[in-house]
């Protein structure tokens, strides 16, 4: 069993970083408490989660029709709809929109899907200046780092690190005070908003019956990006379309509570195409880019398609013991935590063969998912695929199933015969009762025993059963203790 690269190496680095460990623990406990408090005060919460699951499944079962209806509605509003099979196509579409609009600067709201398609480098290559405007995204953009949490992308940084970053990259006077740091970002970015040509956002949902795009945030940067610039482009995964307002309300009832413990986020916006005659703000042109990038493939798999219900709330990350120690960067993907484990091997070209095994199977994620995705079940299905399908999801990657096919067959052979099973245990007990030899030979066991004293192999229970059985019979007859 060779040590898997990728997650194993990155998570090992994370565990060795004391500052990161402190930041992560503090963050997840904070989010856990907030979510727990909000749900404890929400009497209809279980029904609300059932509703989200049903709403999403119903929408997925009609996805092609809903997307067609959405396209008609957006077009009727004066917007334009574009379809992208993969990330490269989506980036090309956006570059073309920017070129036609003669845009030179873009402001961006936090959007997982734009990270997924690596939009920023593509727009920059096309000659645009691109500014992330969500405070955490702005911080990591300045630092040149990827996000480490779906909801709080800069959770791995503390105030001192942000202060140093702002001083270095913005020439600001050094401060560690979060309010002062936020004001620096506000002032700098306010100028950008007012001068940008293009506002790029994701979308929490799009409503087929009206063409409305739903956007949820706390900072106001998405409102700024869709109010000040003359063009608004929303990029959205095809699985996010909903039939109409009732479904949107069902989603909103649980989204902010799951993500941050608020009943509603500071701003929930329902945007319907470009501004109307007589209006003086809002975008003058609206584009919706619909992205597949593997989602249609996920829909085709009955075991995996529930992954498409995801609301991107981040609740699963916040309760995942592995996330708490490894941090988001260990996933090497814009999607981290349990949902990241499920999506990363399936989106785009797919990668992260080791991810499904980087899970203790504790089930905490499923307990909090507002869409009732059976994350542990999906992860188990992905393990099976990783073991059975040599093409899954990136054969060039090392790592994956801890038991080779040969070892698995040997195990079945031995465990298929009580005699062989007993003999194997007996042999191990004779040769290496303290598992000392095994620890030296197997690198995985070696790592295990670095921090643990291995148990000793013992005389098997079955061997002592006959005597015990007689003793228990005596106890039962006496009606007392053995």
């Amino acid at each position, binding site marked *: 069993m060779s040590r898997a690269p990728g997650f194993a190496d990155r998570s090992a680095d994370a565990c060795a970083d004391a500052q990161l460990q402190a930041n992560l623990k503090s963050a997840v406990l904070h989010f856990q408490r907030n979510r727990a408090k909000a749900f404890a005060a929400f009497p209809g919460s279980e029904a609300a989660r059932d*509703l989200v699951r049903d709403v999403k499944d119903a929408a997925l079962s009609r996805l092609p029709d809903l997307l067609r209806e959405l396209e008609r509605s957006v077009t009727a509003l004066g917007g334009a709809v574009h*379809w992208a099979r993969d990330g490269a196509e989506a980036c090309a579409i956006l570059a073309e929109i920017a070129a036609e609009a003669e845009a030179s600067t873009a402001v961006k709201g936090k959007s997982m899907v734009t990270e997924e398609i690596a939009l920023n480098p593509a727009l920059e290559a096309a000659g645009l200046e691109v500014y992330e405007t969500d405070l955490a995204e702005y911080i990591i953009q300045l630092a040149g780092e990827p996000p480490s949490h779906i909801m709080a992308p800069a959770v791995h940084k503390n105030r001192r690190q942000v202060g140093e970053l702002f001083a270095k990259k913005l020439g600001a006077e050094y401060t560690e005070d979060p309010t002062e740091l936020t004001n620096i970002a506000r002032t700098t970015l306010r100028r950008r908003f007012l001068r940008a040509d293009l506002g790029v956002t994701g979308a929490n949902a799009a409503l087929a019956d009206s063409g409305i795009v739903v956007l949820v945030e706390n900072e106001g940067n998405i409102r700024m990006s869709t109010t000040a610039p003359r063009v608004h482009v929303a990029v959205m995964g095809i699985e996010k379309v909903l039939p109409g307002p009732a479904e949107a309300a069902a989603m909103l009832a649980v989204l902010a509570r799951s993500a941050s413990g608020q009943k509603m986020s500071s701003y929930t916006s*329902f945007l319907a195409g470009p501004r109307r005659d007589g209006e003086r703000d809002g975008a003058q042109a609206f584009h919706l880019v619909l992205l597949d990038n593997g989602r249609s493939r996920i*829909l085709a798999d009955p075991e995996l398609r529930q992954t498409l219900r995801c609301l991107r709330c981040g609740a699963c990350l916040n309760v995942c013991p592995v996330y708490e120690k490894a941090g988001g960067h260990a996933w090497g993907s814009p999607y981290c935590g349990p949902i990241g484990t499920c999506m990363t091997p399936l989106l785009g070209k797919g990668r992260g063969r080791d991810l499904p095994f980087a899970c203790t199977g504790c089930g905490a994620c499923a307990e909090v998912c507002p869409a009732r995705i059976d994350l542990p079940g999906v992860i188990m299905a992905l393990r099976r695929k990783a073991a059975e399908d040599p093409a899954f999801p990136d054969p060039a990657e090392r790592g994956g199933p801890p038991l080779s096919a040969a070892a698995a067959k040997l195990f079945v052979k031995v465990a298929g015969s009580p005699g062989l099973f007993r003999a194997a245990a007996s042999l191990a007990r004779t040769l290496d009762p303290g598992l000392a030899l095994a620890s030296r030979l197997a690198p995985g066991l070696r790592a295990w025993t670095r921090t643990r004293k291995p148990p000793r192999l013992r005389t098997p229970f079955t061997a002592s059963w006959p005597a015990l059985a007689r003793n228990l019979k005596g106890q039962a007859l006496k009606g007392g203790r053995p």
Partner: protein
Amino acid sequence: MSDESREHILSALEDALAQAPVASGPAAPAFPEPADPAAPDWPALAREVTTNGGRFALARSAAEARGALASLVKAFGVRRAVLWDHPALARLGLADTLAKAGVEVAPPDLAPAEFKEAASECDLGVTGADAVILESGTVVAIARPGRERATSLFPPVHLALVTRETEILPGIADLGPWLARQRGEDGRPPSAIHCITGPSSTADIELVKVRGVHGPTTLAVVAVEENA
């Protein structure tokens, strides 16, 4: 290229569903029963608004409403303001209060570029509220000509007036039916509806809550009971 991709994606989805239809749950999702229209519950609204970091005041007359505005102007040193073109603002005589306090009000007929500039230099934006959600203390603002998005976004202080024009929604679930009703004569929804719950905020730096990131630092909600 986009048309080809459209066909490719749609047929991939159709094939996916034909292969294995989505397991059926209930025939239709069980949406909650629509609640009866709510009477104003000012204590509930006050509690939610203040929990979210906003300010709340109840004005029992037009005069009290003007007084609340005057206090806000004084507290925040307001020198320039932008107002919605809204019957309640006119009816309550707010322009008068601002004039008396020496506050410069952005003229209503500015061209879009000038309007954007002016709004970004204002200290206060005053809007009405098309709806409020009692459960969450949310104020809902619909964008229309003369009722700009920027008014509740650019200035650091946003005053939202809850008046007889405001529909009272008991819960977040009621947003669904309400939203469904917001259609113009042409059948189109408004170009923008903003649900505002508290001032702009972030906790991105060490989870320390900071108010006023890109949107207003202060949200003031004044509920006005006009008897006369």
